[in-house]
């Protein structure tokens, strides 16, 4: 509670006490004017600032100012003779205002705490001394020290020391990450165990932590359609209610001989509920809470509009490599031809591939049964797009695709050409010796990610990849994807995406999300209704290009984010319907003379109160499956 809020609260409490005292003054005293006097004092204590603001605003010509309308309603009630009612309207209006400010302050605080990843200082090594400086003052290339319990202040590389890093604030991942010299140290992580010496790779302003904070602060500026609707509604609501009040006060007495006091009183109930505050506060508050709930789990939403789109996602298109799969090949099958054994085949192939940088070659080298002996390799030659040839231990080895073998007059058996995954064919001394299959393995949570999306109401999951068909099919079938398209060039991906977009948009409101690593698929990411980049910790390009950023590389986070967004939207619409419903009911009851000012002010403050409490639930939405 701020100082200003505390003072306000004290003022309201004094007002309430004086108000209560007013009821104790006997009605007969000075023919009722003593009690009225006390109520008037309570009224002024509670509402002088409202009266002052209304005066100021009316001089500026702003008639639809809520202060002015509240002043008219309460003064009107007193003019009609009921001082207690006038004071009550003002008091409870102020109680409502105070609560709104308090609730918003609390939410602001808890979201700020959630995003409290800003490092306060950096220990920089300069001239043999450790200096404690502002992170912004550290230059690229300088060495910083991070002690256990401290936050990594800017992005760097570990020079010295072993430790574990807590990345929970950035990724939502609770398992600490072990780090060694040479590993990157993303800013915002907390060093848990050992002293680390880190070389600063980036300025603070370009570091992960600064970029995330900027993103979160700017997120609120991109408003959702629901929010825009509320803003438009609020703009016409107040004038509409005021004009209705004026008509209600004037028409029946002038045209139908109604009693002035009765109709003016009915019109005053309109003015009491003329502020659209409950809506204007609770809807953005729900979105803000939803964005906070997602960021706590390592999902950054670049605005309320992204959250809203996410809730309507019905088609999810994935890139394969690095998104659904690990992006690293591993040998999954070794198929020696008759007369050759597995160990010989792998050993010779690994030696032949030992100098190659191709991902498949690296997988074979990693699978070698014994260490590579570089002295055993001679006459190594790379055949671009085909493979390699080399002499290993005096034997001539060919390792590559069918074209390489055929170029050497060796015809591989037909069944070796249709294996799932990427196949390397091996020939030894001019004879076909067998095949080695390497596959890009699906990520551990990829299956759970697809299942989770289907559970969350996603109708279609599609994989687009530049890889060959057997490799794509193997992944798609393991994961249970609804469709897949292989051997795509970047331009083909866009074409497929366009088609899928048309298909998705055939259902009203349905939206399409594309999930990629954000580096190679920028055009597709931009073309989709919602671009999702993953594994963004340390990748600027991904953060820039996407609408939704998954801080780690777990695709299952997307289903969690969809759940949070759905929950948030539900809460926002509950508030919209509830608030408009109650206001409409009071307008009808007020016009019929069935609602008095007490009921109106309680309904108005109550709606705001409940809508705010409901909005705060968005912060605590659990992304778990029901």
């Amino acid at each position: 509670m701020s100082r200003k809020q505390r003072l306000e609260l004290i003022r309201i409490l004094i007002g309430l006490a004086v108000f209560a005292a007013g009821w104790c003054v006997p009605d007969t005293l000075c023919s009722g004017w003593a009690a009225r006097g006390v109520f008037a004092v309570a009224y002024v204590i509670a509402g002088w600032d409202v009266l002052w603001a209304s005066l100021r605003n009316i001089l500026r010509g702003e008639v639809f100012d809520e202060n002015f309308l509240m002043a008219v309603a309460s003064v009107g009630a007193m003019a009609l003779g009921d001082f207690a009612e006038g004071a009550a309207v003002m008091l409870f209006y102020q109680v409502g205002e105070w609560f709104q400010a308090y609730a918003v302050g609390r939410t602001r605080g808890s979201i700020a705490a959630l995003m409290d990843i800003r490092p306060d200082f950096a220990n920089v090594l300069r001239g043999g001394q450790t200096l404690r400086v502002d992170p912004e003052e550290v230059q690229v290339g300088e060495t910083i020290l991070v002690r256990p319990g401290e936050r990594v202040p800017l992005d760097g590389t570990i020079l010295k020391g072993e430790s574990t890093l807590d990345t929970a604030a950035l990724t939502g991942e609770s398992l600490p990450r072990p780090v060694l010299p040479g590993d990157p140290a993303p800013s915002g992580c907390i060093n848990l165990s050992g002293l680390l010496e880190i070389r600063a790779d980036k300025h603070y302003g370009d570091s992960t932590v600064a970029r995330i904070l900027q993103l979160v602060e700017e997120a609120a500026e991109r408003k959702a359609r629901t929010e825009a609707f509320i803003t438009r509604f609020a703009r016409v609501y107040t004038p509409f209610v005021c004009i209705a009040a004026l008509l209600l006060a004037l028409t029946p007495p002038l045209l139908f001989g109604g009693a002035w006091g009765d109709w003016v009183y009915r019109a005053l109930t309109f003015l009491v509920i003329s502020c659209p505050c409950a809506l204007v506060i609770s809807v953005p508050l729900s979105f803000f809470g939803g964005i906070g709930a997602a960021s706590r789990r390592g999902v950054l939403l670049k605005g309320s509009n992204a959250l809203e789109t996410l809730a309507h996602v019905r088609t999810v298109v994935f890139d394969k490599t690095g998104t659904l799969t690990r992006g690293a090949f591993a040998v999954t099958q070794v198929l020696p031809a008759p007369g050759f054994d597995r160990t010989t085949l792998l050993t010779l192939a690994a030696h032949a591939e030992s100098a190659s940088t191709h991902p498949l070659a690296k997988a074979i080298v990693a699978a070698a049964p014994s260490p590579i002996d570089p002295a055993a390799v001679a006459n190594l030659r790379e055949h671009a797009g085909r493979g390699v040839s080399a002499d290993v231990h005096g034997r001539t080895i060919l390792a590559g695709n069918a074209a390489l073998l055929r170029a050497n007059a060796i015809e591989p058996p037909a069944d070796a050409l249709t294996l799932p995954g990427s196949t390397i064919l091996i020939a030894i001394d001019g004879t076909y010796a067998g095949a080695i299959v390497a596959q890009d393995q699906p990520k551990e949570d990829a299956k759970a990610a697809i299942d989770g999306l289907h559970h969350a109401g996603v109708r279609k999951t599609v994989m687009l990849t530049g890889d060959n068909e057997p490799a794509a099919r193997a992944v798609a079938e393991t994961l249970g994807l609804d469709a897949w398209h292989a051997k795509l060039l970047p331009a083909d991906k866009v074409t497929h995406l366009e088609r899928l977009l048309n298909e998705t948009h055939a259902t009203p409101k349905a939206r399409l999300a594309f999930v990629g690593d954000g580096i190679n698929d920028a055009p597709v990411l931009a073309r989709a209704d919602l671009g999702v980049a993953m594994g963004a910790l340390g990748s600027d390009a991904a953060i820039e290009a996407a609408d939704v950023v998954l801080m780690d590389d777990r695709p299952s986070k997307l289903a969690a984010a969809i759940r949070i967004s759905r929950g948030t939207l539900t809460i926002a619409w509950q508030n919209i319907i509830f608030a408009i419903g109650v206001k409409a009911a009071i307008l009808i009851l007020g016009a019929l003379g069935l609602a008095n000012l007490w009921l109106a002010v309680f309904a108005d403050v109550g709606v705001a109160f409940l809508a705010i409490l409901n909005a705060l639930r968005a912060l605590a939405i659990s992304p778990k499956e029901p």
Partner: protein
Amino acid sequence: MKQSFRLKGLDCANCAAKLERALAKLEGVEHASVNFLTQRMSLEGDDARWDEVIASAKALVHKMEPDVVMA
């Protein structure tokens, strides 16, 4: 030119909405956004008259919400 400001003391959503509309109408302002939750305001507008734009925005904020400080 685009710049963000903090609006200290902004604690009423409807005031924020009204402020946003009024700021957008200022000469030299192309886009204005006020968020009462983050207590931030962002202005986008004419580079050539940027100082003028900020000064008039400050005056407007002070006139409409005397309790709010723009920083």
